[in-house]
């Protein structure tokens, strides 16, 4: 890379000559810039700007990019014309080429600044808090403010993983590169070709390889080691190739000089080749490490996910920085997105620092020395001359490389050591070992809350709730996790294939009830709709592509109080295998076979189309697929994604501050999946009571769909944890003990929070049955007195108090000509049924954690897709994306550009960008100055 770059057209000026009269001859400037050129440029710019401004005001041109494109085209035209006035066609072409080249380079530079700047600006909010670096996310809930919680666990994970990867790859890689250079031959040629081929290996395949071999085939957990191995597979060819190139550049005469002195082969390598290429090798290693740190995809498949500190790379999932950033920004909560950006910014700074270090070390080519080094060598050789016989300490070759590794290792160790003290303390109090599980995102909000609650008992539960039920069942079956969570049991046939149950003993245990809700983002006249009602048929029509517009006649009939807009319906479905999808498709296939089957068939599935975990999507049907409940709810919650509707558990709508559609039940009432309505609905659930069956306690929901109670929510269901009943693989009785204690907690006391989280508590009979299942887990100890559980469904008088006391829906919720105006889900603000101009009150109360009195109309909406920006200085919400509808918006045509082009935020961004230009330019300049000292 560091080849001679200064080979520019070297036209030298003649040295100044004295004139006869003693004055200096003024040499003719051979520079190409004349005053006319500058004028032409400025003139063309001005004319283009003016014409563009005129055009924009005359024509409907949307977006800054379109303006820029038009303006630029005009500029080129004017510039060519102006230059052509007095120059030849050749010069005109040269000028135009020069202008285009300058512009394109400028664009690239701008992109770099934007990428770095945007990340730092958005992440800065989180990064200014010290706790961001010293805490993990174990007890922090996604809605908590930025003053709690941090990414310590991810920092530790990244440092440990890269250290392990370096320990594997550096010796192996450098030795291999030495072999390739020192022992050329057929084998070396083959090896070099293979290494070169492997640099083309997409990093995700490196991850897939480790996943298939280490995790699936060998039955290890997802862990820091697995991640480090995946990074190693990816890094190894990169390091070898870079080292190979560096070693090849070692001047042959140095080696020959060494041989001429009678030095043996290995001494030549050790004392000549490696020291000569030291800086290059170090650079290769550091750049390889930077690549390894920044790569997400191998880690995505192998590291697993945890939000508590796990300093042990051998056991349990260990998240790293890029993965943490990746998963945090998928959350709909603004605080989590900011944390994600903070994580990315931290990662970026880490990589940039490594990069600058590499530049400073490796700026020189092999054998190139700076003045200090040269003086030192001179000194050394003089000394050597004097005491040639007794040469002592040698500058060892790999020392720099080893040193770099040692620094990282020390960092990793340091991180490990500093964190140690807290661990034995907690380990002394109790003897719970950490457990991990993955699966359903439907019930993830409840499990995450429980897992944060049991931290105080010393339990560490890692739950990857972003995975989806299909992943949970699969990972449980492969014994890579200790428990799985799923809405549907094993053994169901999906797309003609039966999901085979695990070969070891396992049991289902209901954990919580809830309603699959239909969260939507819809505005009428700029005002957010919060009271949408839909019949089951209309839901089925929407999700089978039969109803495509919100003003569809049948949907209008459901909503007599709303003037439904002529806007396209965008159904948002899950792209991953999901229990929520399975719940929805079970209902669709059982109740709306006539709609479901043709749709399924048209999407290429074989009919009859029953239950399926992965939603069939027809290309071009206007559906959008996103992965995970966070993915779909986050997509709907984006302010600009109007017209979207998705299916998620009720809690997601509550958490994101969005409404859910009230669903028509058998009795003719539109109901919301509140805890009470779900409890009522599930009174008709048919539970497998045969304790001998493998599917003991699983649900059949046909009765729920048709529950004749006026309060019943038809899409209510239970979620299940799948627990192992025998010790196998990584699952031990010690883990069983933690799992049992955790299960006892959430089955008993955990249920009282269900309602506030957006779920519904389990009734007594299921809690009892669940507790009995817990006893079967190996290592389970202690019993729970069920009468002491603070479960709102328990009562001596009724089997389910919650269901008995659930409120009946008001008359306005009955199908007919009236429609309640009250809000739903996370958006409790009522929707006026008559056309009103922006009079609705501010924020809802829906658990977003940042209820603030938005100041409608005065503040500028935040950065487009991300609702609810918090001003770092005042702590006040700058703009509440969830509820920005409270501002009067006239007309529906809104351009995205408007969100950006206005207000002080943009100005701030520009200033920050300029400041950043400095920040970005500074390190290379410093590095360059450091190097410049070399004559």
């Amino acid at each position: 890379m560091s080849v001679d770059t200064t080979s520019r057209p070297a036209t030298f000026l003649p040295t100044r000559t004295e004139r006869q009269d003693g004055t200096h001859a003024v040499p003719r400037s051979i520079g190409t810039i004349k005053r006319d050129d500058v004028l032409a440029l400025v003139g063309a710019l001005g004319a283009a700007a003016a014409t563009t401004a005129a055009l924009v005001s005359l024509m409907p041109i949307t977006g800054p990019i379109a303006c820029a494109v038009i303006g630029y085209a005009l500029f080129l035209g004017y510039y060519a014309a102006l230059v052509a006035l007095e120059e030849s066609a050749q010069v005109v072409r040269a000028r135009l080429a020069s202008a285009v080249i300058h512009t394109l380079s400028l664009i690239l530079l701008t992109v770099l600044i934007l990428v770095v700047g945007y990340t730092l600006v958005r992440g800065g909010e989180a990064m200014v808090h010290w706790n961001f670096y010293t805490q993990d996310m174990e007890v922090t809930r996604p809605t908590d403010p930025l003053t709690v919680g941090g990414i310590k666990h991810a920092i530790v994970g990244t440092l440990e993983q890269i250290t392990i990867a370096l320990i594997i790859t550096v010796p192996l890689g450098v030795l291999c590169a030495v072999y390739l250079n020192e022992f050329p031959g057929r084998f070396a040629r083959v090896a070099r070709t293979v290494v070169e081929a492997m640099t083309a290996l997409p990093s995700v395949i490196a991850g897939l390889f480790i996943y298939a071999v280490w995790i699936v085939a060998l039955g290890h957990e997802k862990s820091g080691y697995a991640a480090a191995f995946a990074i190693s597979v990816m890094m190894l060819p990169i390091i070898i190739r870079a080292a190979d190139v560096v070693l090849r550049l070692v001047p042959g005469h140095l080696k020959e000089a060494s041989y001429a002195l009678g030095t043996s082969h290995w001494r030549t390598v050790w004392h000549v080749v490696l020291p000569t290429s030291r800086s290059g090798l170090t650079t290769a290693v550091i750049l390889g490490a930077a690549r390894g740190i920044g790569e997400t995809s191998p880690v995505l498949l192998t590291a697993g996910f945890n939000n508590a500190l796990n300093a042990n790379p051998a056991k349990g999932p260990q998240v790293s920085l890029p993965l943490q950033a990746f998963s945090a920004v998928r959350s709909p909560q603004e605080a989590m997105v900011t944390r994600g950006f903070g994580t990315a910014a931290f990662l970026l700074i880490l990589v940039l620092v490594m990069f600058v270090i590499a530049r400073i070390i490796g700026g020189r080519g092999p054998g190139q020395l700076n003045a200090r080094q040269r003086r030192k060598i001179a000194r050394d050789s003089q000394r050597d001359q004097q005491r040639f016989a007794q040469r002592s300490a040698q500058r060892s070759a790999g020392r720099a490389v080893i040193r770099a590794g040692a620094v990282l290792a020390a960092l990793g160790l340091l991180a490990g050591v500093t964190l140690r003290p807290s661990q034995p303390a907690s380990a002394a109090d109790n003897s719970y070992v950490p457990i991990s599980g993955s699966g359903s995102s439907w019930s993830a909000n409840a499990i995450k809350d429980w897992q944060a609650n049991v931290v105080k008992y010393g339990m560490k539960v890692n739950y990857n709730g972003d995975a989806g039920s299909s992943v949970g069942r699969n990972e449980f079956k492969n014994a890579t996790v200790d428990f799985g969570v799923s809405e549907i049991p094993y053994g169901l046939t999906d797309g003609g294939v039966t999901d085979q149950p695990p070969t070891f003993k396992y049991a289902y245990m209901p954990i919580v009830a809830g309603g699959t809700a239909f969260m939507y983002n819809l505005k009428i006249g700029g005002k957010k709709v919060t009271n949408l009602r839909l019949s089951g048929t209309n839901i089925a029509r929407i999700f089978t592509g039969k109803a495509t517009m919100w003003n569809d006649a049948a949907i209008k009939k459901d909503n007599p109080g709303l003037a439904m807009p002529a806007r396209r319906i965008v159904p948002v479905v899950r792209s991953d295998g999901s229990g929520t999808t399975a719940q929805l498709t079970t209902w669709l296939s059982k109740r709306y076979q006539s709609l479901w089957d043709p749709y399924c068939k048209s999407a290429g599935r074989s009919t009859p189309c029953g239950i399926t975990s992965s939603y069939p999507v027809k290309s071009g049907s206007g559906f959008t697929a996103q992965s995970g409940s966070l993915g779909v709810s986050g997509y709907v919650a984006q302010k600009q994604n109007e017209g979207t509707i998705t299916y998620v558990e009720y809690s997601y709508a509550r958490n994101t501050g969005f409404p859910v559609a009230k669903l028509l039940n058998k009795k003719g009432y539109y109901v919301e999946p509140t805890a009470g309505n779900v409890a009522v609905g599930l009174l008709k659930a048919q539970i497998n009571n045969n304790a001998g069956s493998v599917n003991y306690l699983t649900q059949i929901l046909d009765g729920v769909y048709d529950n004749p109670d006026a309060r019943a929510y038809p899409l209510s269901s239970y979620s299940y944890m799948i627990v192992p009943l025998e010790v196998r693989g990584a699952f031990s009785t010690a883990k069983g003990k933690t799992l049992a204690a955790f299960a006892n907690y959430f089955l008993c006391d955990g249920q009282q929070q269900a309602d506030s989280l957006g779920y519904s508590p389990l009734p007594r009979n299921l809690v009892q049955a669940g507790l009995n299942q817990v006893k079967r887990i190996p290592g389970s100890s202690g019993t729970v007195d069920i009468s002491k559980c603070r479960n709102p469904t328990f009562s001596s008088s009724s089997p389910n108090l919650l269901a008995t006391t659930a409120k009946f829906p008001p008359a306005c919720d009955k199908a007919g000509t009236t429609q309640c105006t009250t809000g739903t889900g996370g958006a409790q603000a009522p929707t006026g049924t008559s056309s009103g101009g922006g009079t609705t009150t501010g924020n809802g109360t829906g658990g977003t954690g940042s209820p603030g009195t938005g100041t409608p109309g005065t503040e500028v909406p935040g950065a487009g897709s991300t609702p609810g920006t918090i001003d770092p200085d005042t702590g006040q919400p700058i703009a509440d994306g969830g509820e920005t509808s409270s501002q009067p918006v006239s007309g529906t045509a809104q351009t995205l550009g408007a969100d950006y082009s206005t207000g002080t935020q943009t100005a701030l961004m520009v200033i920050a960008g300029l400041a950043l230009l400095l920040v970005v330019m500074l390190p290379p300049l410093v590095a360059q100055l450091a190097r410049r000292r070399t004559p």
Partner: protein
Amino acid sequence: MSTAVEVPPGTAPPARPRRSLTSRPTGADIVFHRVTSTSAIIVLGIMLLVGSFLALRAADALSVAKLDFLTETKWEPDAHHFGIAGVLTGTVLIGLVAILFAVPLATATALYISEYAPARLQRTFITLIDLMAAVPSVVYGLWGFFFLQNQVVPLAQWISERFGWLPFLGIDTEGYVKGSATSQNTVFTSSTFIAGIVVAFMVTPIMCALMREAFSQAPIGEREGAYALGSTKWGMIRTVVLPFGKGGIIGGSMLGLGRALGETIAVYMVLSVVPAFQPNIFQNGGSSVSSLIALRYGEAQEFSLSALFAAGLALFLMTMAINFTASTIVARSRSGAESG
């Protein structure tokens, strides 16, 4: 160049046989040879293991899908209906969009650095471009999803509505009304186009580095010659630098394409993954092999996992072929430049 000592032919007296230069290696040399060759064998072993494992697992799926694997657009491995026609099209489209943006950017920047930039700033710009290559992909993904997408949507709509009759540029979303600003976000977001642009910025620095290196090797004699003949700077570039750097441009672009095809996380963040044939680049939804793997690996059963391996193998073979071609072209152009 690493041969130790070369005796120039003909210098030795013809009568005497040449003295053999082989020396008996010392014990330490033998150990040195053993250690380095062992590590080379280990590396080779790991690489071959990855490759053969990939091929072996892929074979399970390929033996079921047979030739349908190349033509089938659906991805339902459990139902034995799967093929890469859909996802590979998506991958290639992303790659093409990426190089469509990246090649002009990279070429212009490389020309700027090697020909236009003041000599003092050259190294700074080179460092900046290398720095851009070091930015982690997840950062590009974040930026693409949260920032770039909103800027590009109006442009995508504008192009699509005017040139929608061209292949790949149309929109076939049901219920989409042309010119409606109201639904643009859900129609034009998360598209192949946006993912391609994000990837373009990721691969531009790599391309740029290679091109700049090739340009800077254009021989000084020809450059001066062009100027001496009265050529403008652009004339010189067109007649000297570009022809000499042609190998660098082609090789660099292909290397960039190889990287673009394999990129996972940035694509996964931006794109709404629909594993089907979706040729409209501006339309919401698309697919790529790597994002398909990232999406489906977890829930994949034994057989579907091998289907993913088959897709991964196809991708790997493609990137490998591209990389090899690219490095051959670059190597050839280098030797050509040196001799010229």
